[in-house]
C-alpha cells in the first residue's frame, strides 16, 4: 500500500503543471500564415502563442463577426478552475498521505480519480459549449457572411480535438503540456488504485 500511496501522492501533484503550462492549444495556419498563429488555453486564461497572436486572431475574426477571445475576467471559468484544480491536488495528496499511513483504503484513490474525471468531463463540456457559442453566435453585421452550399450560414466552431479546415485556415486543437501532465497524473492515481487493490486482495 505504501508504493500505491506514493503514486497517489505524485499523481495529483502533476496537476500543478496546469498552473505553469497550457491545458490545451489551438493553432491556426493558413496560406498567408506559414507560421501559424495560436492560442494557449490555461486554466486561468487564454494567451497567444506569440505575443500578438490573440490580437491578430481577433483582427481576422472580426471579418466573419466572431466575438473577441475572452479576457480572464470575462469568463467565470478562469477564476473557478484554478481553485478546483488546487482543491483536487490538495485532496489527492491528503488521500495519498492517509493511504501511506494506512488510514484509508485504495477505494479513496479510485474515488479521487472518478471525481476528477467527472470534473474534467464537465470542464470539457463547458469548454466545448464556449467554443460553440464563440463559433456560432456571430455579429449579424459581419463583413463576410458565408453560407454552406445548402444555404445554411457557415459557423466557425473550432474542433475540440484534432484538425479541421475552416475557410482558409487549418485549425488544430490538441492538449498541451499542462493537459498531458494532468492526464499522466490521473493515470498515476489509477495505477495507485490498482496497486492498492492488488495489495489488499493478497491480504
Amino acid at each position, binding site marked *: 500500500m505504501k508504493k500505491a500511496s506514493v503514486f497517489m501522492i505524485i499523481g495529483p501533484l502533476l496537476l500543478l503543471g496546469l498552473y505553469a503550462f497550457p491545458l490545451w492549444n489551438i493553432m491556426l495556419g493558413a496560406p498567408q500564415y506559414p*507560421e501559424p498563429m495560436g492560442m494557449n488555453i490555461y486554466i486561468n486564461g487564454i494567451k497567444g502563442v506569440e*505575443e*500578438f497572436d490573440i*490580437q*491578430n486572431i481577433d*483582427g481576422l475574426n472580426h*471579418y466573419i463577426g466572431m466575438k473577441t477571445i475572452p479576457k480572464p475576467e470575462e469568463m467565470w471559468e478562469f477564476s473557478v478552475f484554478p481553485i478546483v484544480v488546487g482543491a483536487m491536488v490538495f485532496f489527492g495528496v491528503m488521500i495519498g498521505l492517509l493511504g501511506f499511513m494506512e488510514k484509508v483504503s485504495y477505494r479513496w484513490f479510485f474515488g479521487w480519480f472518478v471525481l476528477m474525471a467527472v470534473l474534467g468531463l464537465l470542464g470539457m463540456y463547458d469548454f466545448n459549449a464556449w467554443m460553440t457559442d464563440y463559433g456560432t453566435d456571430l455579429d449579424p453585421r459581419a*463583413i*463576410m457572411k458565408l453560407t454552406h452550399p445548402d444555404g445554411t450560414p457557415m459557423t466557425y466552431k473550432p474542433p475540440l480535438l484534432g484538425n479541421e479546415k475552416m475557410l482558409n485556415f487549418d485549425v488544430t486543437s490538441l492538449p498541451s503540456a499542462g493537459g498531458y501532465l494532468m492526464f499522466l497524473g490521473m493515470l498515476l492515481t489509477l495505477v495507485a488504485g490498482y496497486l492498492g487493490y492488488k495489495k489488499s486482495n493478497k491480504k
Partner: protein
Amino acid sequence: MRKYKYLFFGLLGVFALMTGCNNQGKSGAKGALGSSVADRVYVPPGEYDDFYAFFSGGYTGNLTVYGLPSGRMFKEIPVFSQFPTNGYGYSEETKPMLNTSFGFVPWDDSHHPDISQTNGELDGRWIFINGNNTPRIARIDLTTFETVEIIEVPNSAGNHSSSFITENTEYVVAGTRFSVPVPQRDMPIKDYKGNFKGAISFISVAPETGLMDIKFQLMMPGFNYDLSHPGRNKSHGWFFFTTYNTEEANTLMEVNSSQNDKDFIAAVNWKKIEEYVNNGGGTMMPAEYAHNVYDEHTHTATSTMKKEVLTVDPTKVPGAVYFLPTPKSPHGCDVDPSGEYIIGNGKLSADLTVHSFTNMIDAIENEKFDGEAYGIPILKFEEVLGGVVTQAGLGPLHTEFDGKGNAYTTFFISSEVVKWKLGTWEVLDRQPSYYSVGHGMIPGGNSQKPFGKYYVSMNKITKDRYLPVGPEMEHSAQLYDISGDKMELLYDFPTHGEPHYAAGIPAEKLIANSRKIYKLSENKHPYAALTANDTKLVRDGKVVHVYMSTIRSHFTPDNIEGIKVGDEVYFHITNQEQDFDVPHGFAMIGATNAELLIAPGQTKTLLWEPKKVGVWPFYCTDFCSALHQEMQGYVRVSPADSDLELSWSLGD
C-alpha cells in the same frame, strides 16, 4: 539516384585524373559534369538563399538587398535619396535624414557598403555606405534594414575612399576624392597645387548604439584619395589609401594626372593619431555639417548642425603617415585576410603591385626613405614591395580574397576576372566578364574570414546581356562559383542603378535578427494614435494635425470636415497592426509629395496643403486585406473663410 550520379561522375573524375588525360578532373568531381549549372543557382520556391548581398545603388543613392546564388532582389533600402515608394525623405519624420549644410539634398551617389565587424569578422549589426557627391556616411540597421543615421563629412568633396570600417568597427573611414581649399574660400583654381587639401575623416562608431562622430580629420596633401581599406589582423591599427593625381593637376585630368610613373598608397597609423588626439593633439576648426539620427521609437529623425571638427596635420604626428610608391594611378586598395599584403590596383598598368606590411614596417624602422612629399616620408618602392602579379590583365581595379590564399582581381579594360595566388603571384585562372567589370565581391572578402564560395562581378557595361530596353538600362552582375580550382561563370543578373561595390554575409547571420513589426507599445511618436480613442483633429491656426490610425480595413477617422483651403494638414498615420507584413499605405489626392507606406506599429506623417474646395478622397495603397478596396475616406475642404468647425467620424 542523384547521389549515385555524383558518385559515378566523381569516380569518372578520379579516373580521368589518374590517367592524366583530363586536366579538369577536379572540377568534374565538383559537379560541372554531374549537375547542370542551373541547379547551382536555383533556389526552389519558398527556400532561402545562402547569402545576403548588399549592392550599392550608385546614382540611385540607395542600397539594394539581393540573395545569392539566386540573384533575386529583396528590397531597396532608401539611404541618400528620396523614395516615394514608402515616403522616405518626403514624410515629416524622414525629411531631416536628408538635411545637410547645403540644405535639403534629395539625392546622392552611393558607393561602397561595408558590414560591421567584430574581431575582424562580419557581425551583421550594421552596414555603412557613403554618399559620394555631398559627402556623407550612412548607417543602416540590419535588424530593420532601414537607414538610421547619416553624418555629413565637412572639408571633403567626392567622398569616395569611403565607407570602410576597421576590424572592430572602431571607425568608419571617409576620404576625399577631390581635394579642395580648406577652409573653403574664393581663390583661383590654377593655384590648386600646394594649396588644396585632402581630408581623411576617421568617424568613430559607438560600440553599443553605433552612433557616429567625427573623431578627427587628417589633412593630407591635395591629392585624390581614391579608395581605401583597413589593415587587419597583423596590420590592424593602420589604414591604407590609394591616391592619384599626385601631380596635383587641376584641368584635363585624364592626361595631366596620369603623368607620374608612380602615385602613392598612403599608410596611416590611426592608432598613433588616435593616441595623439586623445592626449589633446589636433586643431579644432570651425565647420558646418549635419548629423541626422533616426529614432526607432519616435519613428522620427532629428538633424543637428555641428559647428566644429578636429583636424590633424600629419606632419605633427611623427611616424603616423607614410607614402608607398605605387605604379600608375592605383584605384582599389585591398588588404588580404592576414593583413600582410596591400594590393594597389594600378588602373593604367597591366601589373598588380603588392606591398608587404612586414617590409613596410621594416622600411619605416630602418628609415629606407626616398624623399618626402609635403613633409610625409616616401618609403623606397623596392623596400616595401612584396611582389608583382605581372601581365595579369589590363586595367586592374579591385581585388577580393577567398580566405584560401587566393585573390581575385577585376580588370576593366580586358573585361575579366583574374584569380591569382598570394605569395607566389602566379595567375591561376581568368574568366571573361560581360562587360568591363568594376568591382567584385566575395561575402566577407574584405574581412579576416571570407566565405569563399561565390564571387560576384559588378559590370559597368550591360549592352546585349538582357532583352533590349532602349538606350538606358540597368547594370549587370555575374555570379561565379569559386569553390573549385577554376572559376565557373554560373549566372547573369541585372542590378539596380550602378553598383560600385557590394558586401555579402551568410544568411544565417541576419535572418534571426530581422524584425517583423515595430511594437506599438514602444511607439513614442508625439502624434501617434495608439488606440482608436487617440484619434482626433487639432487645429492651431492654419495648421491641422490629424491623429489617424489604420487597422484592417479602415482609417480612423475616415470622414473629416472643417478643413479649409490654405490649411497645412499633417496626416499622422499610425498603423496599429501588430502582424507580420501588414503595412498600410496612405495616399491623398493632390498631395505634392508622395505616399506613405507605414509598417505595423509605425507612425508616419504626410503634409497636405489643400488648394481646392471640394470633397477629396484618400485611400490605402497597399493591398492589405480582402477589404482593401474599401479602405478609404473623405476630407471636406471648405473655402478659406468658412466657419465650419473641425469634425471627424468613423462609422456614424
